[in-house]
């Protein structure tokens, strides 16, 4: 089976390419790249006016299965992923049971295989039962396909445990994805601690709740040489920590989410539970610091922290509502609008943020369109726009903060292993088995 992707603007920062080129896909892999390619018997996909990128990877999603299938399943989550332009997603282990042993890792991979949409990269727990007391069997999970470890939703707060986790996972060449949060400073917080928390009488979550742990973990990364990736950072102070760590040459990486880059505490308005998320939406100064860090390379990648919830968990008093927002189907257009349309970053940097860097952090061979790489490809249009309509989402979650907004940019097509899993305006289709 051959597919010739013609006339697109191919952007592959790993190879330093940003040019109008043709791409030949053969048996699910990249066979050739060049000008005016011709191939007998190949299906031709004309991509004139479109941007052809290595498949986007969202390294932070909650697929909710096993245990919370009323919120999302691996099937619906990976359908949403391809519809949003992602060819692979790393799923967090805060399921029930949590993904803290190889059986759950294998279950997730089997379900993803059966679903046939985006690839799923399981993240194993750092600690047994996510209880923060003793290390889970990281080695056997890695051997079964876990790409990284995290207790996401909870922080690995005990410093000696975090030290051991960084040391041990270094031997497995897998990073620790840390949800940086001091549980005592978090207390029962609901929104960012500031004017909005004061006005609304909601318990605040101070910035130091995140940044103090980020700073500590960077010290532990320096001590251990372990791979530390800090998840969904939200504060200017955290950006300062990362900047210093990188200047010191540490193997520390981090991600930012579209919602922290686009929204502030003001969005909470009169107790809008759709805006309740952890870490919370912060101040305009934090948002700007995050954006500057995305532009200058301090932030390595954009991840959604896609967190679908049932409406019953959101249409409720603010203090009882669940934390989290869906993001898979809005992230790419939202960021095209914020970063590319505004010319804050060049297209090559955008592809680093969504493909090359997540692949590098997770130690994957993907994230590039090199010869023989798997043909995971995301094709974008900068001429079309995307209207956010939750009732048309493929995720089961409707808890988007962007309802009714229109973003410049659109996902045209998502190919996994050379198969079109999504084409704009059509229902996602699984890969043939």
């Amino acid at each position: 089976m051959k597919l010739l992707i013609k006339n697109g603007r191919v952007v592959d920062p790993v190879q330093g390419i940003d040019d109008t080129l043709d791409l030949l896909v053969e048996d699910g892999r990249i066979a050739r790249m060049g000008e005016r390619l011709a191939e007998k018997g190949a299906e031709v996909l004309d991509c004139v006016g479109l941007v052809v990128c290595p498949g986007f990877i969202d390294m932070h999603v909650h697929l909710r299965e096993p245990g919370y299938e009323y919120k999302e399943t691996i099937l619906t989550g990976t359908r949403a992923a391809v519809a949003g332009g992602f060819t692979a997603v790393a799923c967090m282990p805060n399921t029930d049971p949590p993904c803290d042993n190889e059986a759950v890792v294998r279950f997730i991979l089997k379900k993803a295989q059966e679903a046939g949409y985006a690839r799923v990269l399981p993240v194993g727990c750092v600690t047994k039962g996510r209880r923060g007391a003793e290390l889970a069997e990281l080695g056997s999970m890695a051997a079964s396909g876990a790409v990284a470890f995290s207790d996401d939703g909870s922080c690995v707060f005990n410093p000696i445990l975090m030290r051991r986790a960084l040391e041990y996972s270094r031997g497995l060449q897998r990073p620790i994805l840390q949800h940086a949060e001091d549980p005592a400073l978090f207390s029962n917080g609901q929104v960012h601690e500031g004017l909005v928390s004061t006005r609304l009488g909601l318990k605040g979550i101070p910035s130091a709740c995140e940044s103090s742990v980020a700073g500590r973990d960077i010290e532990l990364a320096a001590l251990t040489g372990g791979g530390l990736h800090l998840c969904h950072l939200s504060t200017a102070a955290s950006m300062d920590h990362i900047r210093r760590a990188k200047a010191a040459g540490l193997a520390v990486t981090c991600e930012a989410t579209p919602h922290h880059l686009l929204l502030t505490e003001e969005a909470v308005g009169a107790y809008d539970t759709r805006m309740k998320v952890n870490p919370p939406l912060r101040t305009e100064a934090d948002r700007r610091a995050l954006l500057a860090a995305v532009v200058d390379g301090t932030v390595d990648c954009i991840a959604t922290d896609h967190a679908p919830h049932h409406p019953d968990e959101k249409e409720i008093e603010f203090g009882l509502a669940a934390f989290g927002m869906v993001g898979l189907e809005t992230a790419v257009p939202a960021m095209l609008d914020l970063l590319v349309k505004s010319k804050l970053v060049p297209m090559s940097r955008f592809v680093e943020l969504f493909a090359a860097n997540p692949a590098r952090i997770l130690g994957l061979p993907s994230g590039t369109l090199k010869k023989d790489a798997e043909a995971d490809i995301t094709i974008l249009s900068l001429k079309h726009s995307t209207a956010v309509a939750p009732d048309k989402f493929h995720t089961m979650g409707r808890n988007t903060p962007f309802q009714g907004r229109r973003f410049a940019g659109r996902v045209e097509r998502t190919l996994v292993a050379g198969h079109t899993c999504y084409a704009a305006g059509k229902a996602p289709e699984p890969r043939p088995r």
Partner: protein
Amino acid sequence: MLDRKDLLGLEGVGREEILEILDTAKGFVDIPQRTVKKVPALRGFTVVNAFYESSTRTRTSFEIAAKRLSADTINFAASSSSVSKGETLLDTAKNLMAMAPDCIILRHQLSGAAHFLSTQVTCHVVNAGDGTHEHPTQGLLDAFTIREKKGAFEGLKVTIVGDILHSRVARSNIHGLSTLGANVTLCAPPTLIPVAVERLGVRVEHSLDRAVAGADVVMALRVQKERMEGGYFPSPQEYFELYGLTNARMKGADRECIVMHPGPMNRGLEIASEVADGPRSVILEQVSNGVAVRMAVLYLLVVGRKTRETAD
């Protein structure tokens, strides 16, 4: 005219609206002195008192207010209702609406509960205190009491002392009194002052003597021991020493200064009995005025709007 469906807080309520409520309340103040303590204004209307948090003073005050307006009143408390069987506020609201009340008065332990309810029901909603957010009718009755004693608000120096952080009364008073033109000073240890509160247009002072100096009104707030999980001050003794209102501490205030407290009081913690029961205290007048102010709120929301709808 007060033209709103709900009264959820004093933030965003305009000066004219507040004054209209106070003026209307003035007309209701003498009703308890009449032989028949009732007016027919809300005859045929149904008012539901939904109290998810225990309260004696506020619930009784609202119930008396509604009854003096001749409304039919229904009370339910969380402990005696289906709430204890696990029903959500949303479901309770839908069920209440099915019985077509005209107004729901909600007291709830969670901030924003009244906002949430107001988006789910078509009847009027009055916030009778939600978590640590607002308690607008308390703010209004405090304003009413101050106006009765001081005449006007412009330039009046009002000092609020105590647990501002956990106080919905403080938030309503900050918004209400600032809107009316008073200069509001907050006084507490820094641990009990909410972040960025200065941006609401108030002054923050950690020394009680400086805060009280020249004050026209000093309002003590209850130390909310039930919300103090974190150790906000070292001991009750030290708190009383630094922030307790005593006759000695009140010396620096204006000679005509009045002392207020929204109740219930912790005597010997935020206020000494000599002050609470002393000549400056208007604490019981606050309670009496509460009924008149709540009558005004119910009347203006329920009848005022209905009348205008008919006129249209």
